[in-house]
Structures are given as structure tokens and as C-alpha cells.
């Protein structure tokens, strides 16, 4: 029977999931992020499928995407949601009798999430058992449920006390923006949009539409093939001059560390932003903010933190108020209901203080808690 493991963060859910897997090993595991979702043994999507494909697959394939069209792509270049869909596709072709998923379904858009849950719910008919942790899901009908309630206080976070200073963020303009990955498909073509400060915008679109790509363009990590960004009408090119406007929290928190420890990360960012005359809060203020996120010391080694704590720490720069625009890419992944609500309220406080915010989430409950305007990616354009 399929099993749903429920409870808040740090209640022992993941340990229970791993124990469930070990009892059934070899079994398929889809972890929260790519390194635990994909095998890491393949250079292409076609090879990833070949690693898992059984000589004679015994069940119907789960194929929400045309993976033949993806066959030559490198798995890490797929979006987070596409990687999860690829992992599920590989499982459906394999001969594993059990699969466990640790919050990875939270990366899927509504349609793909429903498809995935429908497929997993038919496990009995297809000859496999399932265990799932998911913060946005109630126990599906016909599944057994295990509820965890005790919470470790080690990484307890309290976002209610965070109060950013006032800010006069500039109007952000995107003008005739075009972007195409080298040798890949077009993501944007002559996209135009104007974003006003003091507001939150929810960027939506199916998995692989280019949401993370837009964030990378705004942060200067990628440069457009055509078009420009403006701040209050003046041209702004972070891909040339460096980013001084957007505080980015990436989907995978490990995409944003600049040092081994938190203190090292802070010192390097402080030095880099000083060049743009952007001043950060003092170390004392940052330590207080970090404590609100559940971390007690600046000497904390970043890569030794649990993933959920690393994800919370990724919100530090957006919440610190040092930069006028904040960008949050799937900020609630892996976070329990209470933390998601507290984060939504903190974003609301930022926008009421004059900051601009753009966030990507497939979590409707979280988005509904923030007064926002929708921004939709469709047909290589941004529709407001």
C-alpha cells in the first residue's frame, strides 16, 4: 500500500522515509534536489533512461514530457521540475518495486503534479509501492498515513520579528528582451514588461518555461541576445556591470553560496556590494536575522546544514533589505505549512516597505497569502 508521511520539518519524516526505503532496497529514490533525483552517471537524458530501463518494462511508462526530444540534453540543464519528471519516467521504465519521494513533487506545476500523483496512486495495479513526503499534500485517498509531530528545536525559525527598513525601489523595465540558450530553443523573444516597486509579482508558467532563466537574466548571470533592462527608465546591464539591485534566492540553495561558512559568505558579499555603494546591515544585525532563520552562529559551515535549513538561509539576502528588488525561486520547497505562512507574511512586509518582489512558486496556498499580481510566461513573452 502507498504510504504518506506527514508532519512538520525536523520531525523525523525524512529518516522514516529512508528507513522505509532500506527495508525495500533496492528501491528508487527521488530526493529534494537534482543530485538525489538523478543517477549522476549519465551525460545525456537518453543515457539516464538507459541506466534505469529494464530489459522488459512491466508497467505503463509515465511520460508527461516528450523525452525523445530531450534525449541529447544534459540532465542537469533541465529545470528542477523537468528533472523530477525525468526521474519518475526512469522509475516507470525500471523494474524497481518501490519508490520514495522526499518533497520533490513540490517542484512540479499543477498539471504535472496531478499526473504524477495519479500515476503513483495506481501503484498497486502497476506492481509497485510508494512512500511520499509532501508539505502541500493531504493524504491521498486509499493511502496509509504516518503522522510525525515532535519537532527538534535546533533549527527553529521565527520570521515574525523581521522588519526591513523602508526602501524606494526603482521601477523595473524589461524592453524587447530576447534570449536563447546556445544551440537550444528560444526562451524569450522581444519580451516587454514593467514592474512597479512596492508590489509582489508571481511569475508562473509550466516546468521548463524559463522562470529561472528570467531570474538569471535579471541577476546578470546570463546576458540577453537582444533587449535591455531599465531602472526608473535608465539602462541597467547587470551582465556587464554586476548585480546591485536584485537579491536572489535560488531554487536550489546550493546555487548561491560564496564561501564555506556563513561568515565567509557574508564578508565576500559585503566587499562585492561595497563597490556598488550598497551597504549591508552590520554583522550584529545580520546575526540577529540569521538567528530568525534558525542558525545560531556565523561560523556555521553552510554545507553541513540540513537541506531545509540551507533553504531557509537562502532567504537571508532578500530579507536583509540590502537590495531594493527581491527574487525568490520556489522559496517554499521542503518547508512546512507554518514556515511557508511566515515567509509569505515577511514578503508582504517587504513590499509594504517599498521593496519590489518577484517570486516563482507552484504553491497556490503560499501565493494566495501574498497580495500579488500575476506574471505569466507564455510563447516566449512575459504577460502581466
Amino acid at each position, binding site marked *: 500500500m502507498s504510504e504518506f508521511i506527514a508532519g512538520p520539518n525536523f520531525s523525523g519524516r525524512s529518516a522514516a522515509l*529512508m528507513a522505509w*526505503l*532500506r527495508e525495500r*532496497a*533496492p*528501491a*528508487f*529514490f527521488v*530526493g529534494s*534536489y537534482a*543530485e*538525489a533525483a538523478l*543517477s*549522476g*552517471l*549519465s*551525460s*545525456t537524458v*537518453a*543515457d539516464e533512461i*538507459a*541506466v*534505469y*530501463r529494464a*530489459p522488459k518494462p512491466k508497467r505503463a511508462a509515465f511520460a508527461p514530457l516528450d523525452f525523445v526530444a530531450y*534525449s541529447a540534453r*544534459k540532465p*542537469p540543464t533541465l529545470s528542477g521540475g523537468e528533472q523530477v519528471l525525468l526521474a519518475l519516467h526512469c522509475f516507470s521504465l525500471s523494474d*524497481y518495486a518501490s519508490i520514495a519521494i522526499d518533497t520533490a513533487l513540490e517542484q512540479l506545476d499543477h498539471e504535472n503534479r496531478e499526473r504524477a500523483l495519479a500515476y503513483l496512486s495506481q501503484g498497486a495495479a502497476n506492481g509497485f509501492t510508494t512512500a511520499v513526503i509532501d508539505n502541500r499534500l493531504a493524504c491521498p485517498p486509499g493511502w496509509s498515513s504516518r503522522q510525525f509531530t515532535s519537532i527538534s528545536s535546533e533549527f527553529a525559525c521565527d520570521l515574525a520579528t523581521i522588519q526591513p527598513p523602508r526602501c524606494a525601489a526603482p521601477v523595473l523595465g524589461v524592453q524587447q528582451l530576447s534570449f536563447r540558450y546556445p544551440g537550444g530553443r528560444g526562451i524569450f523573444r522581444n519580451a516587454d514588461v514593467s514592474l512597479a516597486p512596492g508590489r509582489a509579482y508571481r511569475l508562473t508558467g509550466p516546468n521548463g518555461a524559463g522562470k529561472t532563466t528570467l531570474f*538569471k537574466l535579471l*541577476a*546578470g*548571470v*546570463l*546576458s540577453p541576445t537582444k533587449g535591455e533592462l531599465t531602472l526608473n527608465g535608465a539602462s541597467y546591464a547587470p*551582465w*556587464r556591470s*554586476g*548585480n*546591485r539591485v*536584485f537579491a*536572489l534566492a*535560488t531554487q*536550489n540553495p*546550493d*546555487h*548561491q*553560496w*560564496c*564561501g*564555506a561558512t556563513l561568515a565567509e559568505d557574508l564578508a*565576500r*558579499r559585503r566587499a*562585492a*556590494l561595497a*563597490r*556598488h555603494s550598497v551597504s549591508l546591515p552590520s554583522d550584529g544585525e545580520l546575526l540577529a536575522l540569521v538567528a530568525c532563520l534558525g542558525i545560531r552562529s556565523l561560523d556555521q559551515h553552510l*554545507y553541513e546544514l540540513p537541506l531545509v535549513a540551507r533553504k531557509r538561509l537562502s532567504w537571508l539576502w532578500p530579507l536583509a533589505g540590502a537590495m531594493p528588488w527581491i527574487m525568490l525561486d520556489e522559496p517554499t520547497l521542503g518547508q512546512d505549512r507554518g514556515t511557508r505562512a511566515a515567509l509569505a507574511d515577511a514578503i508582504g512586509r517587504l513590499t509594504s516597505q517599498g521593496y519590489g518582489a518577484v517570486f516563482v512558486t507552484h504553491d497556490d496556498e503560499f501565493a494566495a497569502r501574498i497580495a500579488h499580481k500575476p506574471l505569466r510566461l507564455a510563447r516566449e513573452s512575459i504577460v502581466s
Partner: protein
Amino acid sequence: MTPNGAVLFGFLVIAGALIARDLGSLAVILAIALIFALGSRERIWSALAWSGGIVLPLALFMALVWIGIVGRAPAEIAANTEGSRTAAAFFVAIICLRLFIIAFAIQAASLHFAGWTPLRFVGALSAPPVVKKLLVLTLSLIETILQAVDRARTALIAAGLITRRHSWRNLRHGWILVQTVWLTVVTIAIGRTRDKWPIEDTLGRLDGALASNTPRLNSADFAWTALAIAGAAAALGLR
């Protein structure tokens, strides 16, 4: 052509390039490598450019040292003769052409398998399973490092520590990029080896994925091998 044939051909061409001692012999070997590349029916310009790009830094350095500064070939120094910059230039040309042929032979072999995935290529090699697995793990490590570089660049550019384009700041902060890449590689490797691989027995699945019924060698392999042997023999004869 089979992967085994490509490896054999590449080995013979490289051996020929190492045996050749003058520009004439090397030109014969290069001609054979070019015919082999054209035989793939793929565009060979990128293979030529890549090979040239690999050799160029060494060529510039050697030209500066041997032609510009020393002004004599090593053989002339050993014989304690006066020597000339022309002899030094021939020496540099031979070394660089040899390296170019080695790089190009590998590129040319890969052109013959342009439509193949790495796993299929490794699977079709006639090698013990443990060697094939080691090859796959090596490729996996390379991919992991590339993935880590992408991640680290994203982090450091977004934070303003480095820039997208070439800059002095990038040179100054290059070591931070190396540190971040290293930490990322370790994190990714731990994520896989602690949870994913042991529970799935992912490495065990490679046995099935690497099994292949491709013939060890086919007639095309024998034809190319004969050409490569002829080239190596010519190089030996021209010494």
C-alpha cells in the same frame, strides 16, 4: 565502424605521430587523420578548430622560448654547434604538429560516433566490465565538475564577486570560484553516494546498461586499421 576500431585506429595514428621525426612523415600521418575525419561525413571544421586551440598556447610559448630566446634547436645545443633560428622553428613545428595530430585523431574518432551517447560508446568497447564502469564514473565526475562550475558561477555572479565577462575581478577572485566548485562537487558526490546509489544499487544497474551486442570489429575497422598501419610504416620508413 565500431568503437573498438576507432580506439585501435586512434592508437595507431598516435603511435605514428610519435614515431615520425620530420615534417614529411607527420604530413603523411596528418593526411591519414584528415581522410579518417572526412570519412565520418560530419563537418570537421570544429574538430580542426578544437585541436588548433589546444595546441596554440603551447606553440606560442615554444616559439617564444626556442625561436625567440634560445635561437637554436635542442639537437644543435647537444652537438655544441652554432645552430640557427630556422632549425629551432622546425623543432617547434614538429612538436606542435605532433600534438595537433594526437588531438585531431581523438576528435576525428569522436566524429564517427556523433549520434552515439557516451554510455552506448563505452558499452560497445571490448573491455572488462570494471574498466567500463570506471570509464562511466570518470565521465560522471567530469559532468559533476562542469555542473559545479555552472552552479558556482551562478552564485558568484549573482553576488557580484565575479563578472560574466573576462575581468581583473575574475582573476582576483578565481580562487573563490575554485573553492566553491570544490565544495559543490563534494556536496553533490555526498548526496549521491550517501542516499541515492546505495539504496538503488545504481552502480549495479550499469552492468545491464553497458551490455552490448555490437560486433568487436567490422570490415570498416580493418580498412581504417590497414590505412593507419601503412601511415605508421611510412613514418618509420621516412626516418
